[in-house]
């Protein structure tokens, strides 16, 4: 299955996990994130996102991660990113999964 990339950060003021939707636009849910098929395009978007987030004091710890599509929805490859996108696996009443 083809690997895709998404870009994520923690929002500076409250630490909330956010995902890049479009240039300068961040969202809280992975379902709404921009997915990059081309790694070079993802790298360019990442560099721009880092510059924008630092300039606007919006986000920190910005990076790209791998995912695939599962039943048409983004599915992170690594457990770490799945847990960030959902919330703690041991407290399904908390985090983004709680509001799903």
């Amino acid at each position: 299955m083809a690997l895709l990339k998404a870009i994520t950060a923690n929002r500076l003021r409250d630490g909330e996990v956010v995902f890049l939707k479009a240039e300068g636009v961040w969202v809280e849910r992975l379902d709404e994130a921009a997915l990059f098929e081309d790694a070079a395009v993802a790298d360019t978007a990442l560099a721009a996102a880092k510059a924008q987030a630092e300039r606007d004091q919006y986000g920190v710890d910005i990076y790209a991660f791998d995912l695939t599509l599962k039943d048409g929805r983004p599915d992170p490859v690594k457990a770490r990113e799945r847990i960030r996108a959902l919330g703690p696996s041991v407290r399904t009443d908390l985090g983004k999964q709680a509001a799903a």
Partner: protein
Amino acid sequence: MNHIAPGRNAGVYNYDEIDRRFVSERVEQFRAQVARRLSGELTEEEFKPLRLMNGLYLQLHAYMLRIAVPYGVLTSRQMRKLAEIGRKYDKGYGHFTTRQNLQFNWIKLEETPEILNELAEVDMHALQTSGNCVRNVTTDQFVGAAKDEVVDGRVYAEILRQWTTLHPEFTYLPRKFKIAIMGSEKDRAAIRIHDVGVFAKRNDKGEIGFAFYAGGGLGRSPFIGKLIREWVPEEDFVAYLEAILRVYNQYGRRDNIYKARIKILVHELGQEKFTAEVEEEFARLRGPKYRLAPEIVAEIRRRFGGPSFEDLPPVSAALEQAKAANEAFARWVAVNVTEHKAPGYAVATVSLKPAGGIPGDATSEQMELVAALADQYSFGEIRVSHAQNLVLAHVKQDDLFALWTALEGAGLGTANVGLIGDIIACPGLDYCALANARSIPLAQAISERFADPARQQLIGELGIKISGCINACGHHHVGAIGILGVDKKGVEFYQITIGGDPTLTTAIGDILGPAVTEHEAVDAIEAIVEVYLANRHDGESFLATLKRVGHGPFKERVYAAH
């Protein structure tokens, strides 16, 4: 201001105006730093070390605030404040750690200055819980209460807190620096896995002195602390520790984070050379300036106050009757209650490890209940143990049944302290940005498998410790059974070690074999326990059986299906 009244609590150090002014000034300093970060005046690179100096980490889901509980001792008022912060600024719960601190997992940066301000109102802070400084000094959770206590370690831990907090030489050490102090015959503070372990004792004349161990630590390269001096007189306590820190500050590596801890320095220099360097520095420092005067020690000791114990018979008839009438209570007393130095009193440990629960987690309601019970039964004082449990240290034996009944009603009456269900586990990949694998689900599955309290008691003392990465916050190296979470191509696996020992006879566990899956891990633990039970002699501990029969039978059984 709404501070704690001096003398109100059994054993919590009473701040004076200097302490309070200092903590308040740090809050205001951090408030300004946060404002400058949010306005863009400070970059993240500039701000990160400042927030870490105030205990604020960025974790997977949000910021995490690690609040200092100096040497693990709290007042009921402080515990209520933690509960309130949990409810107001977090999600209604907190996590007690292996360093006797408390972590909140869902903190907002913009609210942190106000949280710190609220903490300062009850003489609390988040200083020295992060960064390359001397961290919160830990000690025996039974300090000041244990029957086998020789020296009260709280006094010396507090002296170190005051000495290190603003010490200019120790603000930028090569790496973090952890000190543990023990003052009883039995080591309950795991002192030899700390950068410096201090064993407080008395000589034939009754004078207080200290044995110093240096260079212990877990993580990527585990080492057991080496004895570098058998006896340091009380008056030289600070001078000797300063000498150790100076040698570390001078020679510790700053070029490689993996080689920066003092354990590497002691290992590379060798015990003899390291000790010689410390002794040379100590000879230079020793003198009036560094002398710890008896008057200072006496004043610090006075500020802890002390409970006025009633004159009680050593055996409580009410306790004996309650035990005879209630099997579950009798089990809790046998497992969770420890002898107190004062006749008629007992030390009660409140397990934060219910079967299937998250080790060390407590809700705001549970914190408030423990605070209320502390007021009612234990002089308003609570301790946090490095095993992630809470302790009410001065309970009348007559009151134990009422205490247990109240705890049971809130899911806090589990009788498993020191048993297989009393699992130490780090937050792991469910919360921690450094973790490779989850720790908590495995702890939950194991504690559920061994939920039967009678079976746990039959198995006896057996420590399981789980870490979600090689940093070893869950102390897996020194678990009788240790479990380390690893990531293999995106899948969580668990490496099992056996034979670890956190007491003074410290031992690092040996890897049993290839890592297993989460599903296999619980069966593997059960297999290890079965081999132990099948081979043990009467009264023999797990470690003694392992030593006698070797690893073979355990390995054979665990990997039989592979």
